[in-house]
């Protein structure tokens, strides 16, 4: 089951954990396989509702391969 990510707005998120109190589920943690955003469904709308998140914090439509590298991979992938 995948859900829409609040940050990149692609349908790439999967549930990775849920918290319980006395046998009852109280929240779920979701992680986006596309942009790596992680959130809990109990968080305030300002964090997990795309329409309420600030524009600067959104990655909607951003080509993630063009993000800045902390440092470039030192070998090209697949090369020994």
């Amino acid at each position, binding site marked *: 089951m995948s859900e829409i990510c609040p940050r990149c707005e692609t349908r790439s998120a999967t549930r990775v954990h849920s918290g*319980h109190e006395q046998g009852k589920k109280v929240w779920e943690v979701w992680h986006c396989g596309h942009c790596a955003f992680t959130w809990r469904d109990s968080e305030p709308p300002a964090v997990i509702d795309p329409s309420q998140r600030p524009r600067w914090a959104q990655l909607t439509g951003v080509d993630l391969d063009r*993000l800045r590298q902390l440092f470039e991979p030192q070998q090209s992938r697949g090369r020994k």
Partner: protein
Amino acid sequence: MDSEKNTGLSASAKATAAGLGCLRDFLDLLARRNQMVVWHDPVRPEPDIRNVSVAAGNDVASGPAVLLDNVQGYPGHRIATNVLGSFANLALLLGLPKSASVREMFFEMVSRWGSDKPLLERIPREQAPICANHIDREINLYELLPLYRINEMDGGFYIAKACVVTRDPLEPDNFDKQNVGIYRIQVMGPDTLTILSIPSHDAGRQMMAAEAHGKPLRASIMIGNHPAMTLFGGTPVGYDESEFAYASQVFGSRLRLTQALNGTEILADSEMVIETEMVLNERETEGPFGEFPGSYSGVRKVPLFKVTSVSHRHDPIFENIYIGRGWTEHDTLIGLPTSVPIYSALKKDFPEVQAVNAMYQHGLTAIISVRNRVAGFAKSVAMRALGTPHGVMYLKNIILVDEFVDPFNLEEVIWALSTRTRANDIMVLPNMAMVPIDPAAEVPGKGHRLIIDATSFMAPDNLGADPHLVSRPAGAEIDALLQRLKSMQVQGGEDE
């Protein structure tokens, strides 16, 4: 194996150090001195943990450590926050009275500085409390740790106060090149995470070397550590110097080490270790994260690590930090360990240096007190500070004040700026290296430095018309008079 330097520790400092073997011992000490609170009320992971942490840290002088033991959805888990979030807590760690001034603590640390005779003991894994529980299958960090979002626009859940141990991938048997540093860690999945270390930091150098040579890089992430280790995880020591050795000697605490399964050495009494291996040439989308300059760092591609195993004490405590727009625990924690090595480096060549206060945003602003050997001398001291290991990336604004100005007393520093500074004594050094998350950079990693010489002019300078300083009464007699006035004040009236 006692250290010569530690024989110089005061009796109370020795007694404190002898009783501190781990985080739990320190929390007990804080509790006995009314500097630790157990928060039993139920808290939501967000935003309650953040709010309690910020509130405790708002009392910079004497805010308590907080142990939260009722986090919704995480029954049985405990979170420690603000452990070194006040100067009172730092003073207790140093074996000083809670009321010790920052200046006293600075000189206490200066007097202990060095790692020539560390107090390290090695014990087998079977005896190490951290190895009491071990998980190497179906690892789920979300289950093992009560993870939460530190600042509301962070890209995920961060482990922000862990000490990461790595060895030089080209010299994996060299203890002195084993690095311990605090780097931000974003959990990316049940058994994956990113570790952010810039190339100018030791772990970053090791990550680049591992990829360049196709060698494995294994990292042990220690959580809930002896507070001396936490202080030294953020301290710039030389590349071939051991943070374990420094931490044990400066705090006079015997640290017990044991072997992680991946070949690194870890603290035997820490709460948890997450053993990981770098996935060479793989990157994950990391950030933003509310960083120490008080702004969010951007989203970047950062090296990915796979968790290979987790070991932990019984009922482990997840110690984490609140970091963001200051003043925060990060500033208290890292302020003096940033200032002392700069002072020690300067003092070798320039005995005229009196003290260094580089506590502001990890040294983005530093104040150096120095006696001018000759006119204009202070500027050369500033240049030397820029060449220290920390100065290369972090010292952005340097303010130089006279030897009689206390750099820890900001009223005195502003007096010096008001009355000593001449506008042509300000130097701007353009386009130098800069810590990438400084929002004032021209481009990330590059920006301008500022040196303000607020020391007094001396011959052959033009001293101006009225250069003679007022001699202000000071010393024990004045201190005693103030004490007497204060006691009269307390006895004299009633609160409205």
